[in-house]
């Protein structure tokens, strides 16, 4: 009887034990077409040296929202990031050509 009980408890514990001992798996990549677009645009602005302060954080927030199943919130945040990244790129491209016009004269 004792042997049967210990065998039973071993059988019951094995799956949970293997779950506990298992290597933590990496979180699944969270993404949506809008997030991907925003990330690509952010990289473009960064390459010019003109990335804005909050764009990366907005993309991260969009990913977090998506992970929680909040699709609409995620899209909203990703759209903001995309807008910022595109504006930053336009700013960088304009400044690369026209920065000398910004030198004040007196």
């Amino acid at each position, binding site marked *: 009887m004792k042997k049967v009980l210990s065998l039973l408890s071993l059988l019951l514990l094995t799956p949970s034990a293997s779950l506990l001992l298992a290597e933590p798996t990496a979180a699944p990549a969270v993404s949506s077409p809008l997030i991907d677009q925003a990330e690509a645009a952010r990289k473009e602005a*960064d390459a010019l*040296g*003109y*990335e*804005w*302060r*909050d*764009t*990366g954080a907005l993309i991260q927030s969009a990913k977090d929202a998506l992970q929680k199943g909040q699709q609409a919130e995620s899209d909203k945040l990703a759209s903001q990031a995309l807008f*910022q990244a595109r504006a930053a790129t336009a*700013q*960088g491209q304009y*400044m*690369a050509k026209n*920065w*000398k016009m*910004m*030198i*004040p004269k*007196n």
Partner: protein
Amino acid sequence: MKKTIQRGLFTGALVLLTAMTSKPAHAAVNYQALVDADVKKFQGYFLKEFPGVKLEDFGDGVYALDEDSRKQWKEMEEFPPYELDVEAGKALFNKPFANGKSLGSCFSNGGAVRGMYPYFDEKRKEVITLEMAINECRVANGEKPYAPKKGDIARVSAYIASISRGQKIDVKVKSKAAYDAYMKGKEMFYAKRGQLNMSCSGCHMEYSGRHLRAEIISPALGHTTHFPVFRSKWGEIGTLHRRYAGCNENIGAKPFPAQSKEYRDLEFFQTVMSNGLKFNGPASRK
């Protein structure tokens, strides 16, 4: 036959004339002269904007512009908040590394070398700042580099600055590569960036001396003379590049890392603009 000789002579004369009048492809450009012209314009802007302020006083930053602020600052400087940092910096400067050498073994003149930095290293083709040299000395001697914005790097820099007070700023731009770095720094200074679409020059040239809420905006001329600074806002001492990063964040731009090429070029440009002033760091600021 006669015609052939004539044609030959004509062509020869033409080639000779072209060679005499045209510039050779390798004609030396006087980059220092280009930069000196910029310095004259830049300093002239501030001298015209603030006619009562002498050139050498711009090293005192905003305290050169406002008498009340200057009085408060002078009182604070009687018992300077960076004093303990300078002492700590001295100890770190002389502290032996594991190999028996010290920071002192990397710097000439007993460490009074503030006036030698920043400079453009013609072999490495990049700007070398004082903080960069401090960390490179540590790494070359098998030590870990200091974190680049505050703490020990600022303390050692403050000590070096303190024993170098009065050294004249005279940064040279001798080559095309140095001029390119200077121009990158210049672009960084004048180009607008970030969510607020603002530039260094927008605040520290066009709006210098005006109020931003309760504070007066400091003039860009003299910005690099007095770092590292003990800022009341920070409650501690920090480097110039820490301040650059803070400014970039304030205007909604992603800051570059301290000692990045971007900030070193900016420091190079800004220090060149202060040529003729004296290093007077460390200092206290609000």
